[in-house]
């Protein structure tokens, strides 16, 4: 054993040294970092489309991420593929992939092939910051940046570096001109969503007079909780349980379930991670709580209404949540086209709303890149400028139209889709576990809402 282990140890070390000195790992750091990594699937089949770029190339300015000679555009995605929201973000990333594959197959953007540099942050802010630093010198823009506190964390640096990012979060600060110089809001913010959904529920059900608020910490949880507080004030609801930012670990879920069962609010507004939602819902139910649950979109997961899920019926009867686009059960031209694209992509795709979010984000980026190309400036700054010039970006109904020009109140997205769980649709394949209860709803509170800044800011 001894002799063997000695040689094995030496072999191991040599193996590591060899790996470190292997030819391409030495070279690849000096050439383009982000280009060849991950999902090169799209680009390998379609390089034929890139040969005819020479026409406009002398007029297009580029700096980072766009290579006119090679005919490529690099977009970065900071995603959560292994953390709390992996179940929602992985389909979003697939949506991006499918969209760009089809665009590339049609010749790309004016002949330029779009490559995705997908990085997994695990929903940890530290990783997010680190991955951003690694990719900022090799991509022209960020196709999405997952997580409210995470995007807030890189916001200053984004502004310093002059790079555009589409936040994959619905934090209300993205409409604030003090914060959003490099960010493009899309979909109603958590704050607006809370007000809309809560108001809709009070209109649909007559006897809601008390509300409980539970959320995780961070900008995601606290922004939505702030919205719920505004709704309570505006509608005259009494807040009987206030655990905004109060959910973090097992013990806190237990405590929250106890409190909810005791205080028994008519409505609980939750902003949680899906695994926490299921634990809290289950335990409150076990403690005897029978009220209505409503929450921010990312709190819900179709796993709750899967055929084998024990809470399927309870969730279907008592849960509602907000969403930022039509979702799979929508019927607009944009949604139908996206669904066709996804189902025809040759991948194992079952209906799920978040694929459409991915397609929406990709469509945003497509329109932006096209506009930047038309303007002749595809530098990082040029892409940012082109993005911020959109006064009415449309998606054929896939999602609400967005404007990035003008007064924040004019830009503020006020439409929220109220969704209900749909277990039958999940089984039948007509929905991703959720169906529209009310499309593009704007309550009177939100109608009158005057945007003066993010509903929640760190340190307040």
């Amino acid at each position, binding site marked *: 054993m001894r002799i063997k282990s000695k040689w094995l*140890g030496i072999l191991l070390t040599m193996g590591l040294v060899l790996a*470190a000195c292997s030819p*391409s790992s030495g070279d690849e750091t000096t050439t383009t970092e982000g280009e060849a990594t991950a999902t090169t699937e799209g680009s390998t089949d379609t390089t034929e489309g890139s040969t005819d770029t020479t026409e406009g190339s002398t007029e297009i300015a580029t700096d980072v991420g766009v290579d006119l000679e090679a005919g490529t555009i690099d977009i970065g995605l900071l995603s959560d593929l292994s953390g709390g929201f992996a179940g929602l973000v992985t389909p979003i990333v697939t949506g991006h992939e499918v969209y760009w594959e089809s665009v590339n197959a049609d010749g790309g953007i004016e002949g330029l092939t779009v490559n995705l540099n997908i990085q997994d942050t695990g929903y940890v802010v530290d990783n997010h910051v680190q991955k951003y630093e690694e990719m900022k010198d090799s991509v022209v823009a960020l196709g999405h940046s997952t997580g409210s506190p995470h995007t807030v964390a890189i916001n200053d640096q984004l502004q310093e570096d002059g790079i555009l990012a589409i936040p994959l979060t619905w934090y209300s600060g993205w409409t604030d001109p003090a914060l959003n110089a490099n960010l493009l809001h899309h979909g109603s913010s958590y704050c607006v969503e809370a007000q809309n959904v809560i108001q809709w529920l009070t209109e649909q059900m007559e006897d809601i007079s008390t509300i409980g608020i539970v959320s995780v910490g*961070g900008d995601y949880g606290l922004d939505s909780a702030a919205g719920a507080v505004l709704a309570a004030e505006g509608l005259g609801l009494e807040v009987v349980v206030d655990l905004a930012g109060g959910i973090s670990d097992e013990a806190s879920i237990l405590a929250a379930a106890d409190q909810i069962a005791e205080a028994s609010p008519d409505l609980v507004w939750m902003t949680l991670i899906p695994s926490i939602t299921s634990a809290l819902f289950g335990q409150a139910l076990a403690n005897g709580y029978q009220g209505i649950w409503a929450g921010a979109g990312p709190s819900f997961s179709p796993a709750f209404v899967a055929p084998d899920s024990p809470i399927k019926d309870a969730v279907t009867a008592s849960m509602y949540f907000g969403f930022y686009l039509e979702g799979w059960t929508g019927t607009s031209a944009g949604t139908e086209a996206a669904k066709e694209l996804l189902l025809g992509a040759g991948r194992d795709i079952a209906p799920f709303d978040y694929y459409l979010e991915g397609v929406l984000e990709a469509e945003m980026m497509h329109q932006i890149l096209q506009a930047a190309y038309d303007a002749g400036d595809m530098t990082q700054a040029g892409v940012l400028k082109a993005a911020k010039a959109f006064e009415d970006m449309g998606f054929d109904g896939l999602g609400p139209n967005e404007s990035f020009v003008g007064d924040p109140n004019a830009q503020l997205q006020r439409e929220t889709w109220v969704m209900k769980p749909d277990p039958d649709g999940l089984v039948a394949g007509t929905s991703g576990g959720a169906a529209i209860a009310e499309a593009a709803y704007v309550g009177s509170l939100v109608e009158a809402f005057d945007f003066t800044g993010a509903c929640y800011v760190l340190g307040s």
Partner: protein
Amino acid sequence: MRGRPLLYTSYQGDQALMNTTPKKILLGLFLLLLVTIPFQLIPSISFMGENDWLKLLSLAAIYAIGALGLNILTGLAGQVSLGHAFFMGLGAYTAAWLGAPPGPLAGLGLPMWIWLPAAGIVASLVGLAVGPTAVRVRGLYLAFVTLGLVFIGEYVWRNWTWLTGGTQSGREFPEFELRIWKEEEPLIDFSSDGSWFGIELTGEAKTYFLMLALLVAFVLFAKNIQRTRVGRAFQSIRDRDIAAEIMGVNEVKYKLQAFAISSFFAGVSGALLASFVGRTIPERWNLFLSVLFIAIVLIGGAGVVTGTLLGASFVILLPRIVEDVTEWLTEYVVEGTGIFVWLADLVVVSGPDDWGIINISQGFGPGLSVALFNQVIYGLLIIGFLIFEPLGLYGIWLRIRNYWKGWPFTY
């Protein structure tokens, strides 16, 4: 005497850190090598001069400083501690409180020469407070008491949102800038590109030099502890604590000292880590960070300073190496020439009908994603290392050295 390197003629000679000439020469060359890495003078390792490798090396230095502390506590004094992450967090938040500019979160804006040592000192004082428990509780139970510190720490960081920014959000940490006292322009700015003595350097290179300098200081400190009275007392406590007590080594005093010193290292390392990363969440100071340090100490070789340095480099550089190898393999699959294609094809899943271990697309196919594959390899390598070489990297180095020492009579 020449030709007789192990013949010492004076106490100083025996106790010297560099007791043989080859050691002196090699150390000198090695330090020279480290200093010149950012200038990319040597072709085969010039890739290490790239900014991202410099960042990795700086990170390895920071972890090495922390690990040196744990090495003193666990390797030298034999007090098993899983609480290192707590002291690092303590150091980091002390640094933040003192050094971060005033804003929505706590910060006094004091200069670096105050917040960095203060981080160490505060952590050290708290370590002293923990010390008496170590006297009462032994062995593996002590490990769990220190582990409890980590969880209590997590609870405190989570709830002191005025200091830490709260869960999920975190806060910014002070930059590496040396000022005299709160001026506008720092005297030395380590984090942005600039020039020193006429040489153009990137921010990463400057930070690298700073970390190198700090590491050298701490290594000297650690090595010196080992050969002084305090160090010998630690080792006697580790080996036979009752016998040591009988001989007059005051167990309580030295255990307290061990905790205090180790926490100082941890506090400084934590402050450096947080400022290096720039922004971090309170969840970072968790059990896995503590365990990372234990792994560094054990993989490197417990009780030996060189071992700790080797361990830190291994653990920090390994994920990057694994990532590079995986990328290299996936490129081979895509480009498809050469003898390694069959290996790459075997290992990587490239299309919907392919089989393999690594799956590079995000679709729900067979195989692990790249990130997961890296994790698995990381875990397996740690296991493999400890199984096949329990003395750690230092043990391997010893074997190699002894082989060549006795060559050609190595049997």
